[in-house]
């Protein structure tokens, strides 16, 4: 992964999401999978699901929501989260 990558949702699907505090549960009808994740990770996922998004755009989004957080922390968080989301095959850098 590098910062010029664009992220796509792995499978076209509706995503059901419910947020409680800093946690969200999401459900993907296409696979029947349920995930519990940090609300910020769910926000990233939903953004990518709405339209393919690049790293910089996601950074802008997170910076607006988490204004107290430093840029390097946001960078790290985003890198890790995107990797996680790819590991569980929710997002991809390759358009199918």
């Amino acid at each position, binding site marked *: 992964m590098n910062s010029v990558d664009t992220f796509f949702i792995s*499978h076209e699907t509706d995503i059901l999401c419910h947020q409680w505090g800093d946690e969200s549960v999401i459900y993907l*009808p*296409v*696979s*029947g999978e349920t995930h519990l994740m940090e609300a910020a990770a769910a926000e990233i996922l939903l953004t990518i699901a709405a339209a393919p998004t690049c790293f910089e755009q996601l950074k802008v989004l997170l910076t607006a929501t988490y204004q107290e957080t430093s840029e390097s922390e946001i960078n790290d968080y985003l890198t890790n989260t995107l990797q996680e989301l790819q590991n569980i095959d929710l997002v991809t850098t390759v358009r199918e």
Partner: protein
Amino acid sequence: MHEPIQQNCLTRFLRNPDDEAPNFSLNEWQLLFRESRRTNLLCRIAYLTKQKKLLGYLPERLREHLISAELLASTNLRSVKWEVIQIYKALSESKIPFALLKGAAYVMRQSEASHGRLFGDVDILVRKEHLKEAERALIKHGWFGTKIDPYDQKYYRTWMHELPPLKNLKRQTDLDVHHTILPPTATIKPDIHKIWQSSEPIPGYPGMYVLSPIDMVLHSATHLFHEGSFDQGLRDIVDLDALLREGSQKIPNFWQELMARAELLELSRPLYYGLRYCKLLLGTPIALEDCELRSYKIAPPALTRLIMDKLLLKAMTPNYIGNKPRLLGLTQFILFVRSHYLRMPLKLLIPHLLRKAIKPDT
């Protein structure tokens, strides 16, 4: 094709839901409920009553069960689609073309037969020369062989038309990979190249195919008498009935095309039985007279037909209570033997059955 046969509430309803529903007594609904649940057709009843707007005639608590069945069917449908996507991913990566068979094919073609149906295994067809490679690709993507007993391994690989059944480790779903629609040892030998030639691609999934609608009918009819398990017998008849009705509406000269194709693929006999029992059990409208059937030389000798009628119609009765379960067990056993006889040279038949009988449940 006009012999009267004893109809149970389930076949009566399936034949003619519009006329039966308003007149069913509570007892008849009860029997329909039990018979359809026993034969895995409750989802189909849910689909039919909804589509034909018959829900108002149902006892209230039966409606609850139909809601339950409908939910089950839609989840099942969703998971088959997902499974197909995963298989596609695994095989397309290695550029192995494959065709979906039976249930999965009905789903991807949105065929009438896919509505209100429960799906078990997914069946796919690959070319013989791709078999090994397909197995490797699937194992790489999380499937594993379920039959580890060396005898079973040999049985499947040598005599059957499939790899030993595969299971997906993560999703616990079953996949059967075939390279022909009947085993190489069967007396009937449909030409698989002809079947591949007329197969049809599924848009959006290069390399993934389904059989042509007519071959799908023929495969469904063949499957009816060549598979070991008749628990699903009536469900298979319902499939075939739906395929026949849909084909005859959508395909010009359907019946003639069907007969000609059956002759070409040497599947006339299974087709004959399929048509016969669809008509007898479900009243499938078949625009062919008996004399026409005979002119295609597909009807079996009268005695053979009589024996098959007796065996088959009995096997199609849901075996819950009453209905002489012992006799029925025997009937199903004979059909089991018969379908194995179709699959394998006779001398091989006995050892496998014996092993099935003495081996503890796995």
